[in-house]
């Protein structure tokens, strides 16, 4: 029972019928799916969710599309892991990691693509498309293959080799554009007007973006229907952060949480692409676009579509927005791997390094239950970490050589 009832402009409130459209004709504001929360509240229960599939579709009534038949677009229901070693290292108390590397193509983008392609199939599209910094490219190419759709994926030509390869393998069209993500994005807006395709993050974006809410739903359910005090979320377009916040609120609206949630939401960016963090620090409302220059390519959106809304959520929830350098990003990746055995991509490095900074500054507090979102797998961005890690030593296959290499080790008597 999908209950996405209409689309509403986030700026001026004008409503539109459900269709593959994404901007308000009056003021060009972004459109967002609406729901009949009272109707959902009358049917959804913690038990009905628990009896559902181990994927985002367990929250079907809160998504704007019916679950596709046959479990074809399963994503989500990833582990929420208690991170005691990392917490100790950062001087924090109760820290959890939402490990979204464990999705079909190893990033949270499988969630949004599941919803987008479910809707695209419902609309009758034959081709899926996207503008991507890499993770979305993987997810769209794979989900299109799985559902029998053709695909056109547009990426900046300087993307990590690994992300190109792990997109191309699915057999769709991968078009590298000589330009940055914002150039790719602008081209895709033009293409979406010309070709009858489901551009997941253009004309299907109002539905696509809703998939990110499931990260909040799962977090609350996995905490035995409690919410965190503070979440730390990486920012590219800003959509993920705003939808996680929305997801917690909706759980209260439909009666799954007794009290209105009070979750501080903090954002994480790379200093090489930090339009939201810059606006936050400066105390201004205007999110000024930038030209990205960072190893965190999955977050390299200089003109973030939901930057205003992310900034608003951060401020109203009492969170903060931090930014970290490329060197700190690498340190963040290594810290996460070393303490928790989780290999995250550069966006994870941004999140962990920002968490460390906010913890050191006392913004994220020791008495808070904290959740950090690990949105993509480290195998996707090997280039970023390659110069910084190596084998401990290389030796001949002999006991003597090993002893010579590690003279300080204690051997059994």
């Amino acid at each position: 029972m999908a209950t996405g009832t209409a689309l509403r402009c986030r700026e001026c409130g004008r409503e539109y019928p459900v269709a593959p459209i994404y901007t308000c004709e009056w003021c060009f504001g972004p459109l967002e799916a609406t729901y009949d929360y009272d109707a959902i509240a009358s049917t959804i229960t913690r038990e009905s969710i628990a009896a559902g599939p181990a994927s985002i579709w367990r929250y079907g009534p809160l998504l704007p599309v019916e679950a596709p038949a046959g479990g074809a677009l399963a994503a989500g229901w990833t582990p929420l892991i208690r991170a005691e070693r990392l917490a100790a290292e950062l001087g924090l108390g109760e820290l959890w990691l939402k490990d979204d590397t464990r999705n079909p193509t190893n990033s949270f983008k499988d969630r949004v693509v599941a919803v987008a392609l479910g809707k695209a199939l419902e609309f009758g599209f034959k081709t899926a498309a996207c503008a991507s910094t890499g993770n979305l490219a993987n997810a769209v190419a794979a989900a299109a293959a799985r559902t029998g759709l053709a695909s056109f994926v547009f990426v900046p030509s300087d993307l990590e080799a690994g992300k190109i390869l792990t997109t191309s393998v699915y057999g769709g069209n991968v078009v590298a554009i000589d330009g940055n993500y914002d150039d790719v994005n602008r081209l895709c807006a033009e293409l979406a007007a010309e070709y009858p395709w489901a551009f997941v993050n253009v004309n299907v974006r109002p539905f696509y973006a809703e998939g990110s809410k499931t990260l909040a739903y799962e977090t609350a359910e996995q905490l035995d229907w409690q919410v965190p005090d503070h979440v730390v979320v990486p920012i590219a377009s800003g959509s993920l952060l705003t939808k996680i916040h929305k997801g917690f609120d909706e759980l209260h609206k439909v009666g799954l949480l007794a009290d209105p949630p009070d979750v501080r939401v903090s954002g994480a960016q790379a200093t090489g692409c930090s339009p939201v963090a810059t606006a936050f620090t400066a105390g201004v409302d205007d999110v000024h676009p930038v030209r990205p220059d960072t190893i965190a390519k999955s977050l390299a959106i200089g003109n973030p579509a939901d930057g205003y809304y992310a900034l608003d959520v951060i401020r109203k929830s009492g969170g903060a927005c931090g930014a970290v350098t490329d060197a700190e990003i690498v340190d963040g990746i290594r810290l996460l791997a070393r303490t928790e055995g989780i290999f995250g991509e550069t966006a994870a490095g941004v999140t962990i390094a920002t968490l460390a900074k906010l913890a050191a500054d006392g913004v994220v507090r020791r008495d808070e239950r904290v959740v950090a979102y690990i949105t993509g797998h480290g195998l996707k961005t090997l280039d970023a970490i390659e110069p910084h890690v190596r084998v401990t030593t290389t030796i001949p296959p002999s006991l003597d050589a090993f002893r010579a290499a590690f003279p300080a080790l204690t051997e059994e008597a």
Partner: protein
Amino acid sequence: MAVTVRIPTQLRNLAGGAAEVSLDGSTVGEVLGALDGAHPGFGERLYDDGGKLRRFVNVFLDDEDIRFLDGLDTKVADGAVVSIVPAVAGG
């Protein structure tokens, strides 16, 4: 200065269906003002109640976002192309 203004699909009805119009002005702001003068109705669609460009309206001078230039005060040369573009989605 004769400048070409490219109009997005959503606003073409205000200009009698035209995708482009030719106008005069020495800055981007003046050109957009001339657009509203020639085709009343553009102003309220492009600007909010406070007189600022709506935040999901992007304006490009040739291929550059005017937020990377001098905003509405950006000088325009004869023959330049000003494009009104709905804000990008993406991400």
